[in-house]
């Protein structure tokens, strides 16, 4: 019911949804994060903490399951060097009704952004630089605490 994969290769959204589908699924919400083509950005390299990543994501997904009645959760996160236009992350959630699917999908993304041990390094004009965490992501995750 919960599928988590960390991989260097690309993923196929339609195939992931097809695998996720339960018989009584009425609603599937997905989120796909991509490397934006912007300015002089030439690549993004994602590093992670292998021993911790799947565990932490499983914890986040388990938390989502206790909050909403979900039929399936698939999370695929890529690592390694990605180019502008490449997909980075997929979160797909199946539920009977749409509000559970939408909310759980947004919740999972907010927590992936603030809890899952990934770090991004940008390449711009031949130079590399680590991406700084954004306070807006912490705020976004914080909004679920009182719910």
């Amino acid at each position, binding site marked *: 019911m919960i599928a988590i994969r960390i991989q260097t290769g690309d993923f196929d959204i339609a195939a992931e949804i097809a695998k996720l589908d339960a018989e009584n699924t009425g609603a599937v919400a997905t989120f796909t994060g991509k490397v934006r083509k912007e300015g002089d950005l030439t690549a993004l390299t994602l590093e992670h*903490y292998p021993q*911790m990543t799947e565990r932490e994501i499983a914890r986040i997904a388990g938390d989502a399951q206790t909050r909403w009645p979900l039929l399936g959760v698939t999370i695929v996160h890529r690592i390694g060097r990605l180019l502008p236009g490449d997909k980075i992350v997929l979160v797909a959630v199946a539920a009977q009704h749409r509000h559970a699917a939408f909310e759980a999908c947004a919740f999972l993304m907010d927590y992936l*952004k603030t*809890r899952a041990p990934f*770090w991004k390094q940008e390449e711009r004009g031949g130079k590399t630089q*680590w991406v*700084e965490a954004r306070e807006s992501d912490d705020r976004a995750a914080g909004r679920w605490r009182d719910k």
Partner: protein
Amino acid sequence: MTLLYFAWLRQKTGRGEEQLSLPADVKTVSDLVLFLKKRGGGFEDAFADLRRLRVAVNQDHSGWDTPLRDSDEVAFFPPVTGG
């Protein structure tokens, strides 16, 4: 214990992983940070501002006052930026 360093901490400390016998006066993560800073150079620089750092003990997000044992895996890293 196993120490791990990620992202720019790995670059500043010059290593991704090291094995260390728990020093006698190190009871918590804070103690361990003080011990590592005493190495000077890249370590002093890496741990200069704890507000810019996070720690996980045995793959759990943890606080600076978390008690440590010699069998622990302690990972230091900047705030995460995945997704």
